[in-house]
């Protein structure tokens, strides 16, 4: 079996659209399965898709979203895992495109384009990320790829321990970072998923987001091989500047919390990043990257495109 789709649900009515968009994929039936993790604490209302022998429903009891997703991954049979939300849906040929990509690429995280829509399903912007190969630096800086448009190899997912359920909110970008710390990524330039934007009714805890996000990044910076991996994915003056900035901002954060030895370690690594940057430090981009906060290139490009159409 090539793919297992895992859909955690809190019982929203759009679930039917999500499941049906998977069942409609143009792939042989034996090649994929759907696991719906019902985290609502009550039984799901009856629906036609529940009769499909490709769908399995498991119940969890109002846990974090990550716990539900990890459970789905634990019982999955597919070579790749695909995490969909109950209010998002797939393009009919999505899995075909990802399957083709998997045949030509050894990357463990495969993805395509995402169409963001508002709560009335009106298209907002399209995300084309352009990340290929070792992109650890880019995702450390803040580039992010929606899970809905991604296939993640199951063995890799299990090896790194799955989602960190202690992070409510940034667990998806945290997973992406931990995968890219050891593995590569590959992109297909086809539309994969439609994803609803907006906080209303979402299970993401936005109030804890910045704090959790920082803690997640600190944990990754504590892992081994981070410096080397960032260096080998920071190939332009801009990204070399971002690398130094990652260590500098972490040093400040640790100083504020009186983690003096960690701060000292981060400062020495930021100096090492600047020394390793070589000629890059003569470029304007390097200093621009070091001095300013990051805004996602994929988002900006998408917004620019949407405005030019209007």
């Amino acid at each position, binding site marked *: 079996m090539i793919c297992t789709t895992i859909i955690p649900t809190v019982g929203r009515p759009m679930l039917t659209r999500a499941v049906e968009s998977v069942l409609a994929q143009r792939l042989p039936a034996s090649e994929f399965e759907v696991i719906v993790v019902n985290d609502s604490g009550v039984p799901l209302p009856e629906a036609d898709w529940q009769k499909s022998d490709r769908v399995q429903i498991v119940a969890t*009891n109002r*846990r974090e979203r990550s716990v539900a997703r990890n*459970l789905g991954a*634990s019982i999955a049979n597919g070579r790749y895992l695909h995490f969909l939300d109950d209010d998002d849906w797939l393009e009919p040929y999505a899995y075909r495109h990802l399957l083709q990509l998997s045949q030509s690429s050894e990357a463990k995280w495969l993805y395509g384009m995402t169409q963001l829509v508002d709560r009335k399903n009106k298209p907002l912007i399209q995300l084309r990320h352009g990340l290929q190969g070792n992109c650890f630096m880019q995702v450390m800086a803040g580039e992010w790829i929606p899970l809905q448009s991604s296939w993640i190899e199951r063995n890799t997912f299990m090896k790194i321990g799955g989602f960190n*359920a*202690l992070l409510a909110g940034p667990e998806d970008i945290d997973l992406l970072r931990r995968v890219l710390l050891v593995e590569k990524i590959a992109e297909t330039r086809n539309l994969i998923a439609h994803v609803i934007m907006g906080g209303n009714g979402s299970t993401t805890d936005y109030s804890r987001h910045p704090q959790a996000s920082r803690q997640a990044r600190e944990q990754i910076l504590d892992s081994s091989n981070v410096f080397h991996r960032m260096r080998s994915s920071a190939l332009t003056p801009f990204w070399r500047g971002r690398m130094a900035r990652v260590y500098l901002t972490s040093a400040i954060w640790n100083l504020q919390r009186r983690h003096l030895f960690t701060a000292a370690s981060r400062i020495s690594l930021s100096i090492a990043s600047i020394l390793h940057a070589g000629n890059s430090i003569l470029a304007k981009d390097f200093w621009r990257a070091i001095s300013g906060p990051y805004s996602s290139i994929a988002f900006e490009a998408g917004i620019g495109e949407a405005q030019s159409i209007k």
Partner: protein
Amino acid sequence: MAISTIIPTIGRPSLSAAIQSVVDQGLGSDEFEILVVNDSGKSLPPADWQKLGNIKVIHTNRRNRSVARNVGAAASHGKYLHFLDDDDSMLPGAFEALLTVAEKSKAAWTHGAFRMVDNSGATVIELSPDETGNCSIQMLAWEWLPLQASFITSEAFFAVDGFASLPSLGGGFEDVHLSRQISLLYDMAHTEQTVTTIRIGDVGSTTNYITMFDQNRHSREKTIEAHQAFRRLVASAKSSPSHSNYWCGKVLYYYMASLKWQLQNKHLFTAASRGTHMLAATLLAGSRLLSSDFWRGVIHPHYPRMGRAIQEAGADHLYANTRRAIDMANSKSKQ
């Protein structure tokens, strides 16, 4: 619902007896549930217990034990989680004894006395651990509280994200690691009643005894680097009712061991941080520095009661496979 018993199984026939021992506890069917996580990759043979209402079977597909247990926990409803193995069983009255203490003490981890039996069912040793309150230093020292004999609150379990399913810890050490993580945040309680029998030995077990020592090292480092670990460890050593000098020495011992390890791995800043904590542990010890127990803790490795009891009972041969594997690993590293 009060209790969720989670039984991962690789399809051993003793599963039915394990389940029966839980059903026989005499609790009402709305007070407990059993989640059997079938990790054998095959369907289970039909059995009578499958007709019971509050037993659920979930299939995982040949993952490690931690994954299977986490799956059971995620699907559970109980206030307390109880992890049983498919070749162990609970003794009559166990749930009542554990539940009473757990409810009264409000502890996150409540444990009871246990009996270890060999493959023929004969008792080899019987132990009654007495860890109560903040026991983080004892957990760090590899004192072992069997999951079979423990009730863990669901709240505490999820506060540490369940069993770590990392390969570096996934071979039998996950229970000790869990107790270390939980003891950093929560307190423990115990009952002297014998609650379970556990099969002893390394024949036919899914535990990977060969990598146990590496796992212990990884787990210890992960525990020490946690926020507030030092404060919690010192408080736990000082609160030990009869051996506080010894345990205060042990705090110093583990920071020293970590310092050595971090230096070997060239993590200089982390090593420096451990050095500072060693200094702090020495200063905080105060007049304890004059006691010989303190220095015994600092110098000698800790022998957990489990190992001592097995030795005293002359049951070393039950771990012959492990012994052989360790000897082999040692002779290889010497060459």
